[in-house]
């Protein structure tokens, strides 16, 4: 007897299955636009919210929901800096490195962070707690040097404040 065919919209490969809630959220987002492809970034963010990052196998799954080819989704997923294509830590630290923060000490702040966490930019701590990334101007220049941890913006941040700050993100 034949195996039942998996529903193509929800099961794409053995490795990845879109959560039904995520699929519904993607379709809801797509309804805001003339063409569903416009929800591509949001769809990637929906996957990322659930998984922390966007695994390769999520790409064809999203493509099917949006009715476009996987290459279109892959092109978008590899272009935008806040879409993560490899696993990141439980918390992502974005350190602003643009001009106003540069002038007010972002290099020193980044070095202090690197030293405390034992990682460089683009790396994740061995315990999987933090990933450290640069980000362009956070729009918090009157609070430079600034950084963002998950959804929270901090600034001005002194190196001596880092220990207390990081404690809030177990």
């Amino acid at each position, binding site marked *: 007897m034949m195996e039942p065919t998996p529903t193509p919209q929800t099961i794409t490969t053995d490795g990845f299955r879109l959560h039904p809630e995520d699929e519904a959220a993607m379709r809801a987002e797509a309804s805001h636009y003339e063409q569903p492809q416009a929800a591509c970034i949001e769809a*990637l963010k929906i996957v990322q919210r659930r998984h922390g990052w966007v695994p390769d196998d999520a790409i064809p799954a999203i493509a099917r929901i949006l009715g476009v080819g996987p290459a279109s989704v892959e092109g978008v997923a590899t272009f935008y800096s*806040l879409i993560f294509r490899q696993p990141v830590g439980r918390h992502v630290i974005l350190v602003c490195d643009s*001009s106003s923060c540069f002038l007010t000490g972002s290099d020193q702040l980044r070095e202090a962070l690197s030293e405390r966490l034992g990682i460089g930019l683009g790396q994740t701590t061995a315990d999987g707690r933090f990933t450290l990334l640069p980000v362009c101007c956070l729009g918090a220049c009157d609070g430079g040097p600034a950084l963002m941890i998950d959804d929270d913006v901090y600034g001005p941040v002194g190196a001596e404040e880092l220990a207390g700050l990081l404690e809030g993100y177990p």
Partner: protein
Amino acid sequence: MNSQRQSPVYRSRLLQPASERTPDSHPLTWRLRDDGQVVDLKDYESKQGYEAVRLVLDEGDPQAVIAAVKEANVRGRGGAGFSAGLKWSLTLQGGDIPRGYIVCNADEMEPGTFKDRLLMEQQPHLLIEGMILAAFANNARFGYIFLRGEYVESARVLTAALAEAREAGWLGPDIAGSGFDFDIALHTGAGRYICGEETALLNSLEGHRANPRAKPPFPGQSGAWGKPTVVNNVETLCNVPAVMLRGADWFQALSGDRTDDGGTKLYGASGLVNRPGLWELPIGTTGRELLELAGGVRDGRELKAWLPGGASTGFLLPEHLDLPLDFDTVGKEGSRLGTGLITVVTEDQSMVALMRNLEEFFARESCGWCTPCREGLPWTVKLLLALERGEGEAGDVELLDKLAADCGPGLTFCAHAPGAAMPLQSALRHFRHEFEQGVRYPKGKPHADPIPAGEV
């Protein structure tokens, strides 16, 4: 979040108390609360909120809105300074032309700029009202607020405000009984400075990579999904309600005899000043006035140079401090007003290091579409790094001149590369000796490459 300890949480704020702000003089900020809490729908409506929408929809003449905005000479506050009214007058509408879109450019990412965040986080309904007016004037059927992904607080506030406005009938079908339909969706991005370029923004909105499009056709002719589309900055749109309520003459008069530009501007100062911040001031306020409001240069150091409005504007000098900061005056000095938020550089800072930082930004944020930008900017960074380390080669400074000249304008699809060239050219002009000091080797003499391949 850890509440045991005082964390340096960042909050957007205006450094002018409510007692100093009036509807007559501060159209953008007079409603803002001293406690920084959101001006919600009830609060906004009690302070003349949505009165401009009611007035304009009652009158029912879109062309009158365009004429008023044109006459007021509301110039684009995202940095380009293009007349919003002129832009609107070029939007295709009428006849068989389908209704298009209003897109609010809320992708605030210009280094040194933190103004739109304030308007969105504390007064979302002013932006929504401005978008409704823009939609009516341009016959748009739907609006998008293209918000950068990192503005999480703005997203939260705007989402709540859009729901409030919809509930109250300011968005949706038959707004205020006028028969005019319009709604807005929030579209959040996922990084990349280039999304702020208006045609790249449209590609990003449509779910593509944010590469700029060739112009013409301009978005007003063929924008999102080929429909007439108007893209305006947050602050620009926020000026429209007051223009419609109080008139073009009043708006023009806000700047007094400082400048021909009308209205106020959200000005700011950051970098090496004592009191970095944000103020709503008449357009044409001078750099010296801003610097005074900002408490002067930090720690009594000497002012060396300043960027008038973001990373893509040219450096000005102390001698330029008394110029009115309007679009044309700053343009005549070989720079641009840009966003009007100044970045202050002190005498002890190396211009070479700062330029290296700026060009690293532009190189990283290039979308890679055009060759001078994709290839030229990383090369520029490499040369600047060598000069910064005192390992430059004779001819490097001249090569920087050439790379900057090759960036345009006119040699690339968009203004990203020219924006990268402008601060570099002004730094080379005003502080050339600093760059020349980094030259150590004669031209062509073999020496260790200071930067391993692939590091830039």
